[in-house]
Structures are given as structure tokens and as C-alpha cells.
């Protein structure tokens, strides 16, 4: 009887490590990926653009110079934007304004700037040559 109990205890002890999932992070998985794949994007609607947005991530070649962007889209078709850009040796702000229109997933920002847009309820994804910017809906505090 005692022998059976001892064997059972030893068996539980031997199997216990297998029951706990190893939590070592593989060396290939140590780096964090940009949060560009964690959204279910859909074709945007005009209402998705109305409001204030700030960039959550900027990927692509432009990310070297473009640190952060903000946009305010109004329902009347006007928009205003600001970007923190690495200029020569110091960062500097650029601002712009214009009118926007949406045709399918093509967002026209004027002056021939047409970008491919997709949306979630509180995010916009704007893709153009050189990079992708993911904007998060923001509020003025």
C-alpha cells in the first residue's frame, strides 16, 4: 500500500513539470512586432474619418523621418494635419490643411495625394508609397 502511494506521488511529481506550460521566450520571438496586424480592417465609411486622430504607429521607409502625425477631419470635407518630422538636425512640425473625399477605399487628400484607407471603429489605416500609418481616434482633453 505504501509502495503504491509512493509511486503515485513520484509519478505526479514527474508529470507536474509537463503540466505547466514552459514560458521561455524563443530568441526569434523576443522582438515586438508593430501593432499592424492586430486589427480587423474593413473598407472605410466617411463617418469613420470625422474627428481627431493621432498616429499609433508609422511603418515603412518614411518612419525614419516621420515621427508622429495628427489629423482632424470634419464632416464638411475639410481637414487639417500636423506632423512631427525630423528635419535637418532637429525635429520640426509641419502643418497643412485641405479638403478630403472618399471614394471606396481611396482617400483623396488633395494635391494629388490619394492614399489607400481602411478602418475599424476607432482606427484608421492609411497606406501610401513609402509607408503605412495607423491612426487612433483621439479626444481633446
Amino acid at each position, binding site marked *: 500500500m505504501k509502495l503504491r502511494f509512493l509511486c503515485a506521488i513520484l509519478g505526479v511529481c514527474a508529470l507536474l513539470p509537463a503540466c505547466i506550460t514552459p514560458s521561455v521566450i524563443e530568441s526569434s520571438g523576443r522582438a515586438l512586432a508593430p501593432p499592424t496586424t492586430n486589427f480587423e480592417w474593413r473598407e472605410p465609411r466617411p463617418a469613420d474619418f470625422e474627428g481627431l486622430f493621432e498616429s499609433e504607429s508609422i511603418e515603412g521607409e518614411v*518612419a525614419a523621418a516621420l515621427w508622429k502625425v495628427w489629423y482632424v477631419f470634419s464632416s464638411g470635407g475639410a481637414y487639417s494635419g500636423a506632423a512631427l518630422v525630423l528635419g535637418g538636425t532637429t525635429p520640426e512640425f509641419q502643418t497643412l490643411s485641405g479638403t478630403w473625399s472618399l471614394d471606396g477605399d481611396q482617400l483623396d487628400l488633395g494635391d494629388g495625394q490619394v492614399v489607400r484607407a481602411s478602418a475599424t471603429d476607432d482606427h484608421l489605416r492609411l497606406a501610401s508609397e513609402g509607408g503605412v500609418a495607423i491612426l487612433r481616434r483621439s479626444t481633446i482633453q
Partner: protein
Amino acid sequence: MTSKLLQGIGICAVIALVGGSIAALLVVDRRLHITVAEEDDAARRGPDPLVLLAADVGSVHEELRELGDGVGTQMQALHDALESSASEREAKWSSEVARLREEVAMLRAHVERSDAASAQSRAEVATALTALGEGLQRVANAVSEGAARPVAVAPIEIPTAAASTPVELHVAKPESPAVAAATEQPAAEAPKKSFLSFQLPSRAFAFDQRQRFAIVPSLSRIGFDAKSTLHDFSGVTTVVEGEIMANLAHPAEACAGSITARADSLDTGLEARDESMREVLEPAKFPELRFEWTSFEPTKVDDAAQKVSGVAKGKLTIHGVARDVAMSVTVAVDASKRLAIDGQTKILMSDYQVRPPSKLGVISVEDEAVIWIALRARTLGPAPVTPR
């Protein structure tokens, strides 16, 4: 009666008037002498022309004398001025000649120095050509071994001998095409790239330039791997910040930086294990985990792939104890022109006065652990120049 009286008076008056007239006539006749004669010829003919001519001649003579005196004075002044001007010109030309002689002497000395510099330059060109030949030989050897990549050999630029200044020798460094493209600086006049209607410099990142890089916390984390008797586990934190300065093309030159993480933010995935870890790390007392990056010894610099491997050296501070460490590190440039810095090193917890956690003497953690970093850093622009 009256009429007779008046007649008498009248007669008397006439007599008196006649008498008075006669008396007056007699007096005038005695006193008044009237001469009637012909007009004088001299007075009739006017002034004598000879006298007038003599007077005119005298006046002209006087004027001529005054004029002669004036001309003599002017001629004397002119003579004095000419003499003065001649002496001034003589002095000026003397000094000019002296100056020209000095310049000729200086030019002669300069030519002699240029000859010496040219000789030195020829020697330097010969040395550079020898080095270049050796480099080409090494490339040729590498090519023959099948391990070389295309190498562009830049031309040697030698200024013409006509230069009056000491001759400068420019030997362009051989670079691969990729490096040549990467070394172009993001100058202000560089063409702009438009993205979302913003105008961005087309080349904000340069591989061959000493730059400041800031850790991007949202894309970075550091951690450790530990082994226990139960199973192995990792602890990680994304509360990371820091800055690195480096020239990726020449990483051995003045590479420096610091990376810090919050000790109380380490997460192993199990609350009980985190509690045990905090007991030994004492984050309230030693809140920071820190790596002071002081130097880099590259083992491989791949300009074309924009990738660098080597050993980062510095001081690792854990639990308030700082120790020198050497960490194997790989630095690569990702598609977003950010640095992907991955590295790891082994440490002994006991070196940092950290007691490996143990539960009931059965579940214990090994003293040896692997510290690793997986960071992303973006350029902040050129770093301040430091003397090498």
C-alpha cells in the same frame, strides 16, 4: 488946391526919376567894360592827342609790368609744384620697386616650398597607390575564394601641379555601392518625399554617419531566461528607455549609450513567481536595471545589408551592483529605417547579490541566467561630434 499939389508932386517925381536915371547911367558907364573878341583856337580844338597818347602808353606800360610780375610769380609756383611732384613720384616708385622685390622673393620661396610639397605628395601618392594595390589584391583574393561582393574602387583625385598652395592629396576611400548610397547626407536641399501630404526628407537615415538613436519603448523589451528545477521561464519588461550614439559603418568609433528598465515591471507570466522575483530584486530599493554601453567591438560590418555584429561592452547594473559585461549584439536596419538591436549575455545572479529564488528547497532557480535585449531605436539625427 489939392490938384495943384498933386501936379507939383508929379512934376517933382518925374524930375527925380529922370535925374536918377541919368545918375545911374553915368555910374554904369563908368563901371561896366564890355570886350568883344574871337573864340580861342586851343579851347576850340579840345585836349592834345599827344598828351592823351602819352598817358595811354604810360598806363599800358604799367599794366604790362604788373602782368610780367604775375607771370613770373605763377611760373615760380609751377616750377615749385613740378619739383615737388617729381620728388613724390620718385619716392613712390622707389617704394613700389622695393615691394615688388619683396614679392618676387616671396614667390621664389613659395615655389621652393611647392617643389618640396610636390615631392612629398608624390611620395604620398605612391604610398596610397601601394595601399590601393594591396586592397585590390585582397579583393581579388576574396573573389577568387568566391566570398567577395562587388567592390567599387573610387578614383584617386590628384590636384594639378599648377596650384600655388601646398598640394593636397585626396584619396577616395573604396566603398561598396550600397555604402555610397547610404552615406549621402540628409542635406536640407535634398529632395523631399511626400507622404500623406507631408513633405519629408528623402534620406533621413544614413548608415555611415554618427547618429543619436532613441529606444522606441512600444517596440522594445528586455528580459531574462532562467532555469528552474520545475521548468524554464522568461521575465520581460517593455518599460524601457535609452539612447545610443553610433556610426554603424564604423561601430568601433565612439559607440556609447545607456539603456534602462524598471525592475518592478519585470513579468514572468506567473504572479507568484513575480512576487518571488521582486523579493530578491528589491525594486523599491533598486528601481533601475541599467546597461551603460561604453564600447563596441565589431566582428562583422555588412554595409550592403546594413547589419553589424559584434560585442557590446559596458556596465550592467542589477540590484544596485554594477559589473562589466560583454554582450553579443546584432544591429540591423529594418524596413522602417529603425535599428533592430538584439543581444544577450550570461550572468550569475550571485554576482549581483541576487539570491536565486527557491521554494521549499524543491523548486529552485539556477544561479546562471541569460539577459537579453530586443530593442528598436529610431534616429534622432546626427550625433554631436566628439574627438576620436
